[in-house]
């Protein structure tokens, strides 16, 4: 028995997969709404962890799985689903920077700076997007938590950033 805490599309689930004599039961609970769905899996064929075939009600589903920083990318019928591991108690947020001290915004995850939306000298309102960090094919909007004036941008577009790297420096504006 094992329970994983995972997030998909920004919603956190607790996923419980159990195997008993070849029968696999999976239950998925939305952590916030407590809504639970249970699946009974007739058969599961695991091919070196890269691919699994599930059979539910005699219908087979092929699933591709790939490890990525912070979770797994899962492909089902040519649709990619990034699934993040949820660690710690803090709500995982793609907004990023919520724990940053005033004046800096750090990358909430490792990835590539896909787009920079601001320029040095811009004054932007709280909640506006400063840049986009792409990781696991997901676009994460990096927002400014309070109103501020951009003072420097350490990275160029398409550079690689690690989690915790400062991506924006700004001067907080209190009015």
């Amino acid at each position, binding site marked *: 028995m094992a329970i994983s805490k995972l997030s998909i599309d920004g919603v956190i689930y607790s996923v419980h*997969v159990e195997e008993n004599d070849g029968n696999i039961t*999976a239950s998925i609970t939305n952590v916030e709404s407590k809504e639970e769905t249970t699946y009974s899996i007739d058969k599961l064929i695991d091919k070196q*962890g890269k691919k699994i075939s*599930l059979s539910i009600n005699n219908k087979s589903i*092929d699933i591709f799985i790939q490890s990525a920083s912070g979770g*797994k990318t899962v492909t089902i019928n*040519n*649709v990619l689903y990034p699934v993040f591991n949820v660690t710690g108690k803090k709500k995982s947020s793609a907004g990023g920077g919520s724990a940053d001290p005033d004046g800096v915004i750090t990358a909430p995850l490792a990835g590539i700076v896909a787009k920079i939306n601001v320029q040095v000298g811009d004054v932007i309102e709280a909640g506006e997007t400063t840049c986009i960090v792409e990781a696991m094919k997901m676009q994460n909007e990096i927002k400014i938590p309070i109103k501020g004036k951009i003072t420097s941008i350490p990275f160029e577009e398409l550079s690689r950033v690690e989690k915790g790297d400062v991506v924006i420096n700004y001067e907080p504006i209190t009015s």
Partner: protein
Amino acid sequence: MPKKISKVLIANRGEIALRVIRACKELGIQSVAVYSEADEDALHVRHADESICIGPPESANSYLSIDKIIDAAKQTKANAIHPGYGFLSENPLFAEACEKNKITFIGPSAGAMRAIGNKTSARELMEKANVPIAPGKNDVDRKDTKTILKEIKRIGVPLLVKASAGGGGRGIRLIENEKEALEIIDLAANEAASAFGDATIFLEKFVTGARHIEVQIMADAHGNVIAFGERDCSIQRRNQKLIEESPSPAVDKELRTAICNAAIEAAKSCNYQNAGTVEFLLDEKTKQFYFLEVNARLQVEHPVTELVYGVDLVKTQLRVAQGESLTTLFPTQPTPRGWSIECRINGEDPFSEFMPSLGLIGSLELPNGPGVRFDSMIYEGLDVPLFYDSLLGKLIVWGVDRQEAIARMQRALIELQIGGIQTNIPFHQELLNNEAFITGAFHTNWLEENFVMPSKQDFADNNDFALIAAAWSTNFSTSKNTGTPATTETNNWARAGRIYSMRRDFRSSGWQ
């Protein structure tokens, strides 16, 4: 007289490099691949008889470097170069460099490229050759406002201002009413000057709701030109073709003859040689067609023509380049049979504005069965480089008629499964179920004006299975490995047999 080709260097990458290597192999011609540092792992490098690294990932210093490619050809003693499409394929300087170094350039002459590469001179050539062109006015003098206004009245709005030196959808502006015309013409001329170093512009009637119809032509060194019918490439997004088919649902036998004859005249007007494509806009209501441009190279979508005409265009290119005559290669005019459709499989996310989505392809299932062809650069374990375009491969099907071709494509799009990156396969699946596509009622603006891609959730809600799979692979996967891994043969006979069956050189068996 062109000499016999014994070794071809392919000045390209990706699926088209592989396509050319395959043709060389079948003709018993040696092949040389060139590659950038980002493509060390690429399939074309492994399939070619020899390969040479020509520089860093940036195209400007590798695939676009005439000097490096000519050097590589000399070093490997290749006596011909195939340029593929894109990169240097339509660069007259490259064709000239080949000629200077006594290397056969598999394509048209530099002179023909120049004659049709400039849009104004191409219009003049076509006019002389009686190829229909859209009503317009060449060599517009932006200061002569009186003539401009007179011409705009004559041609009628809407019309396009185009840069003579532009191409591929660049340097084009739309004039919707006479009042704004002079201002837009000024803007367009300035843009053309800064983008192409040439402020020459011309006016052309904007044919609304037209289809993009193009004719495949092949011309030899003896003055023979053959047309291999038309392709319909009206399914476009931002001037990028996504689906091509042959024949076109909008072209009947009579129209085919007329448009093919026009294409042949277009090729003859500039002494064109080798494979080329003459693009036209077709006004479906009036059946009137207008010359658009000549693409002086092999096209991405050439396979649909190959399947319908039963011809290998790349092999024909090689044969024509070494002086063989089309009258010997095709004693009778080739005729079409059945229907073919191609879907361009791109590493693009259709659920978020077709953003590029490239990276590691961890899993791959290939389509199979009757009438299916997949020309691609991908394999399981390829980390698709970010430096080039997003074309991963082309899925092409053939059927006895359009209905069968569509059903076959729908089936093949389910079989083809690419894991690890988001491809545009869901877009193709959605489009092939669209009523307008199925009935063939579309034009070049149809996709952008009418087609809406559903959200990921509406397309397929498999979030729960994604969660189960992620949880399973985190907690159970490594310890519960029941299948026999395909890669651990303990017996050398089994290993040798497997390598033999893959028909690969033993040395390359390190690539799994």
